[in-house]
C-alpha cells in the first residue's frame, strides 16, 4: 500500500502520471516533463514535496546537540529562521542523509529530511541523543505537508495568491525562513537552482496553498522535472549521488562540512582519516548516440569512474551527468562514457550546469 500526500486527489484530477517513489504515490509529470522544467526556469512551477519529513528538535541543549550530530555547524545560524544544508554522517563518515536545518528559537530547531531515509534518520538521532545526553525532544511532524514554488516568478505568484504573507516574507534572503501564523513556515529554499519558496503547513491546509499558487500561474510540476532541474543545478540526490558508502568528500559536499573549529561532530575522526575515493564532477556529452545515465562507466585519463546521475538537460539541449571520477581529474578533460555498445565522448565540467535560467558551462 503506497503512502499518499494530502494532494493525491488533486494530482489525479489534474491528469498526473503517478509513480511509486520510495513507497509514496507521487506525480512524475502532468503531461510533459520538459514543459514543466521550462516553466520553472522561465516563470514558475509548483511541486508537492509533502513526502519529505519535518522533524522538530526541542530543548535547551538542541544547538549543542546539532553541533554534535551534523557535519555542518549550526553555530552559523544566529538569526531566527536561518537555515543550513548539512550531511548526517555515520561512524565511518558515510552519508546517512542530507538535510536542511532551520533555527527558530534557542530551544527549537527543525530538520527537513528525505522521505526514504526519514525513519532511519529519526532512529539515528535518538541514538545520538542518548549518546550526547542533551535531553533533546524529537518530534516527527507527520501532521505537516509541504509544497515548493520555484522559478523567477515564484515568489510573486505566492504573494499574489496570499498577499497577507508578503510583509513577513519579502525580506527573506536565500536560506532564510519566516513563520507565518501558528504552523506555516515559508522558506526561501529549493531544489531547482531557481528562486522560490518551500512552504510547510498543516496537512489540511496544503490544498488551499496548492490551488492558490496554481491559480496565480504556477504550473504543477512532477518529480520528473524536479530531477532534471536539480541535476542542472548540480544538486545531489540522496541514494543516487551519495549514500552510506560515500563520504561528503566523495560526493562533492566538502563545502557543507565545517572543520573550522575543533568541534567534535559525529563521524569527524573517520572523515579526516578516510582518503578521498574520487572527485565528484559533472559531464557534458559531446557525441550523439544516447543519454548519460546512472551506473555508466567513464574512462578518464587517470582510470575509470562511474556516473551517479544522468539525464537529458532540457535547458542545454544535451545530456549531462554527475560522476565519480578518479582523484585528480580536472574540468576540461575529455573522457569516454560506455553507453550501451558505444563509447561516447564527454567533457568534464564543474557543476552547476545551470543557475537562475542561465547556462554556466
Amino acid at each position, binding site marked *: 500500500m503506497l503512502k499518499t500526500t494530502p494532494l493525491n486527489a488533486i494530482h489525479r484530477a489534474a491528469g498526473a502520471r503517478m509513480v511509486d517513489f520510495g513507497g509514496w504515490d507521487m506525480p512524475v509529470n502532468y503531461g510533459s*516533463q520538459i514543459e514543466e522544467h521550462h516553466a520553472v526556469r522561465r516563470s514558475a512551477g509548483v511541486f508537492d514535496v509533502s513526502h519529505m519529513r519535518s522533524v522538530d528538535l526541542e530543548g535547551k541543549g538542541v544547538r549543542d546537540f546539532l553541533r554534535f550530530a551534523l557535519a555542518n555547524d549550526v553555530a552559523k545560524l544566529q538569526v531566527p529562521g536561518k537555515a543550513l544544508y548539512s550531511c548526517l554522517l555515520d561512524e565511518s563518515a558515510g552519508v546517512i542523509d542530507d538535510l536542511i536545518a532551520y533555527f527558530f528559537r534557542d530551544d527549537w530547531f527543525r530538520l527537513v529530511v528525505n522521505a526514504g531515509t526519514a525513519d532511519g534518520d529519526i532512529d539515528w538521532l535518538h541514538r545520538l541523543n542518548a549518546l550526547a545526553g542533551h535531553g533533546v525532544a524529537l518530534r516527527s511532524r507527520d501532521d505537516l505537508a509541504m509544497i515548493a514554488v520555484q522559478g523567477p516568478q515564484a515568489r510573486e505568484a505566492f504573494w499574489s495568491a496570499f498577499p497577507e504573507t508578503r510583509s513577513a516574507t519579502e525580506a527573506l534572503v536565500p536560506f532564510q525562513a519566516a513563520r507565518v501564523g501558528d504552523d506555516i513556515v515559508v522558506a526561501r529554499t529549493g531544489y531547482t537552482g531557481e528562486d522560490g519558496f518551500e512552504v510547510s503547513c498543516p496537512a489540511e491546509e496544503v490544498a488551499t496553498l496548492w490551488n492558490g499558487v496554481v491559480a496565480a500561474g504556477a504550473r504543477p510540476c512532477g518529480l520528473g522535472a524536479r530531477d532534471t532541474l536539480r541535476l542542472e543545478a548540480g544538486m545531489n540526490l540522496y541514494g543516487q549521488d551519495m549514500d552510506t558508502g560515500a563520504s561528503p568528500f566523495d560526493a562533492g559536499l566538502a563545502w557543507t562540512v565545517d572543520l573550522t573549529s575543533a568541534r567534535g561532530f559525529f563521524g569527524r575522526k573517520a572523515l579526516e582519516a578516510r582518503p578521498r575515493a574520487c572527485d565528484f564532477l559533472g559531464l557534458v556529452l559531446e557525441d550523439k548516440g544516447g543519454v548519460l545515465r546512472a551506473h555508466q562507466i567513464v574512462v578518464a585519463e587517470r582510470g575509470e569512474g562511474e556516473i551517479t546521475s544522468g539525464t537529458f538537460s532540457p535547458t542545454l539541449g544535451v545530456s549531462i551527468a554527475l560522476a565519480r571520477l578518479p582523484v585528480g581529474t580536472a574540468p576540461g578533460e575529455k573522457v569516454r562514457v560506455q553507453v550501451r555498445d558505444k563509447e561516447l565522448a564527454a567533457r568534464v565540467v564543474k557543476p552547476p550546469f545551470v543557475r537562475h535560467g542561465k547556462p554556466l558551462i
Partner: protein
Amino acid sequence: MILPPELKYTASHEWARLEADGTVSVGITDHAQAQLGDIVFVEPPKVGRQLAAGESVGVVESVKAASDIYAPIAGEVVATNDDLGASPERINADAYGAWMYRLKPADPADLEKLLDSAAYEKASAE
C-alpha cells in the same frame, strides 16, 4: 488508448503497418510513448540490416529512461526516418505518424501473427 485498427502490434509495444509498396513501417505505440515521457533520442537499425523477429534492434530514450525496440517480424531494413534524429519529440506528438524504420518482410504472412488492436489493448492493460 489510441489504437488505429488497421495496424498490427507487438506485446513489446511496437506497431507495424503494411505500406502500398509491400514494405512494413515500424514505430512505438502511443501507450509506449506515454509511458516513456518526453523522447530525446532514437536509434533505429541501420539500412541493410537483416532483422530476426523479436530481436532487439534499436533504442528509444526519454528524459526518464532508455528502452529497447524490437523487430515485430523478420526482414531487411530498407529505410529509416531521419527526421526523428533531429526531432525525436515527434514520437510523443504523433506515435503512429512517427515511423522509425521500414523493413522488407521475409514473409508478408508473418504480419498476421502479430496482435490486432483489441489483443494489444488487452495485453498492455495487464
